[in-house]
């Protein structure tokens, strides 16, 4: 028993030996596994100037010219990403927002593609900003969920945009004219960049009424109408099994069966407009579409 109570044994055995063993197991090994994914430098990332950055230049031209005199080039985008990330770290944003979509708890339904290793292998994740607490939502799929002016309003005074928000105000991201200064422009560009590299990122979020992403894409309502007329969405033939569930409806709700039967099969539904809206949908609970209900995985 005596030897393992002596200074040198404790010092070298526990102090160095077991510590290096754990560092090997938990740090060296994972890094070896990931070694084939090279770290992207900010200049490489900035080669694709995100349209959100271009929109900043269009939306706040004087501010943009003042702080990025070269215009929305790749070089100024790289600088904006760096300054934005540094502001994100300095203001402890990473202590309330995560950048890490987990494969459980329905997070992919809420935010998008589950986080994968190679998306973190860049200079802007040095040190990593995966986060350990969420007061606000995850931001790693934040790109284009909201427009630039939403972000500007939100950074200035979050409660104006999200009334229940507990996020602090950041007036020092703005000049006296309440338009974003360099830090403001940069952090908005940084947040709009998060997740922009994910191929499946849905740029147009129909369920989100807060952004104006169509405007960002340069799509006007006239263009939408024209596209709808030229390319109507074709509907498949309604299945013949439609008649059977109507018969299975219990007699307790006979009223529901009648309107159900009437529009059951129009001759041929060419577009969405041809299918009438079933106003009594909720009366026939056994036909209610429950595929959206998910349990916790």
């Amino acid at each position, binding site marked *: 028993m005596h030897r393992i109570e002596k200074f040198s044994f404790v010092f070298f055995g526990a102090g160095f030996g077991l510590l290096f063993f754990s560092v090997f197991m938990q*740090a060296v090994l*994972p890094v070896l596994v990931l070694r084939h994914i090279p770290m992207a430098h900010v200049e490489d990332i900035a080669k694709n100037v995100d349209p959100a950055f271009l929109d900043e230049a269009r939306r706040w031209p004087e501010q943009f010219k003042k702080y990025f005199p070269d215009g929305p080039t790749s070089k100024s985008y790289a600088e904006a990403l760096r300054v934005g990330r540094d502001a994100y770290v300095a203001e*402890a944003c990473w202590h309330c927002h995560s950048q890490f979509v987990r494969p459980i708890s329905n997070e992919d339904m809420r935010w998008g593609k589950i986080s994968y290793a190679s998306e973190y292998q860049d200079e802007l994740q040095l040190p990593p900003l995966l986060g350990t607490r969420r007061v606000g939502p995850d931001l790693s799929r934040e790109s284009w969920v909201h427009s630039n002016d939403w972000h500007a309003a939100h950074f200035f005074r979050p409660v104006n945009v999200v009334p229940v928000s507990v996020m602090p105000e950041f007036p020092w991201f703005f000049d006296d004219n309440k338009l974003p200064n360099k830090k403001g422009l940069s952090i908005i560009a940084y947040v709009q960049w998060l997740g922009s590299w994910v191929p499946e990122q849905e740029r147009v979020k129909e369920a989100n009424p807060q952004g104006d992403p169509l405007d960002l894409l340069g799509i006007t309502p006239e263009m939408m109408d024209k596209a709808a007329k030229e390319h109507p969405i074709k509907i498949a033939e309604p299945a013949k099994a439609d008649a059977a569930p109507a018969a299975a409806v219990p007699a307790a709700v006979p009223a529901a069966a009648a309107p159900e039967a009437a529009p059951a099969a129009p001759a041929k539904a060419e577009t969405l407009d041809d299918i009438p809206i079933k106003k009594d949908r909720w009366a026939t609970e056994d036909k209610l579409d429950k595929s959206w209900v998910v349990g916790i995985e």
Partner: protein
Amino acid sequence: MAEVVTKAHPHAQEAPAVTPPDELVDERLVKAHFTASAFFFVIAILGGLTFSMQFLRHYPFVGVEWLAPGRVRMVHTNMVAYGFIANAFVGGVTYAIPRLTGQKLLNKTLGWVIFWLWQVTVVLTIFGILAGQAQGVEWSENPRWVDPIVAVAWLMMAIQIYPAIIRAKEKAMYVSLWYFTAGLLWFGLVHLMGSIVPQYFIPGVGGAAVAGLFIHDLVGLFVTPFGWGLMYYFVPLILKKPVYSHTLSLIGFWGLAFFYPLNGIHHFMFSPIPMYVQYGAVISTVAVEIVVTSVVVNFFLTLRGSGHYVLYNLPIRWFFLGMIYYFTTCLQCAYQVTLSAQKIIHFTDWVVGHSHLVMFGVFGLWIKGFITHLWPRLTKRQWYSVRWLDWHFWLVAFGMFIMFMDLTIGGLIQGFVWAALSPWEDSIVWSIPFWGVRTFSGLMIFTGTMMWVLNLWLTAKKPYADLPGFEEVPPEKAVKA
């Protein structure tokens, strides 16, 4: 040795034995570290309290960049770790190591250099973070340019204490000395790793693995060994009986050394870090709970037969409550690390409750225990108010308990609301009552702490020493023969 007696006690009638003047320990230095610890503790609590007001939308410094809530939060965590806990531990070992080894620490002046260097580090941390220079490494948000100073202070500390341990009069070291030996080395290596590797070398998922290792090793290989070491020193000392089992303490130490560092990745479960490392973290976290149980068992069996100390001796009461919280929090840890529990509780207030229970409810209470024990001996004065000590204890005990229960329940609600795909705002709205209770419990802890700090100050300020055996009587009050 004079005990802190809070009620009339049968043994109080005996004349306490007088401790001879101690030449081994620089008592002024120990007192200085405890003073600094208490000072930064107040700053830490003020930071935490103000930050909690942000969650109730009543932040007192809205729009002030230098007091932005996010920055204040980082000041709070860093003051707890480096201002409060580190100072108290250094003070504690400055007292304990010379008495355990029978050797003075290397150099008296070096001790004071370390003291001032450390306070400079802590103050620079505060101003650096508030100025917007925080580093993005959790638990090491002090600016990058402060990290080298920390490394220098650590090196000086190693030079200061290792010679005393190497030259110890007894070659077989007591368990506390193993913990101090390994703990100091671990702190240096872990701090170097945490401040350099994720910042300059390894990004993303690999960096997260190292960051997780850093976060956890700071608690497990710095705070825990020093805390356990000091607990193993002071508790038998106060109880005047040996630790129940030397073998068990040995198992505890080597179990800690082996299992604890392997836990690190449990801060990033379900991340793209390779799954075998994550499974390893689950297994070793559960294993460490078994190791922790050995320490808890050792404490309670040492206390067996001396239970009345919990009623009458305040330092033992602090250690006792800390031990209960310790067993609770580590049992909680073994449960919450499982992948099933992680699905719900990760990212929620549950984790915040857990971290407060550990850092404050365990180590904070133990620190109060040994500072309460030592302060009269260092100042040679009896307590200004023993009633305030009791008030401090109960306010803190209940405050911590309420905070823990509140954040645990709040965290569960947040996790389930998120998983149910409710709009995000629902989790905020549902959490606000819990955040209100948290602020209330923080106020309890703050009030108790201020009573304690005031007590420390008023005790030290007493004009004449009145500790039995050290009484100073002013000339004009001397009884004329």
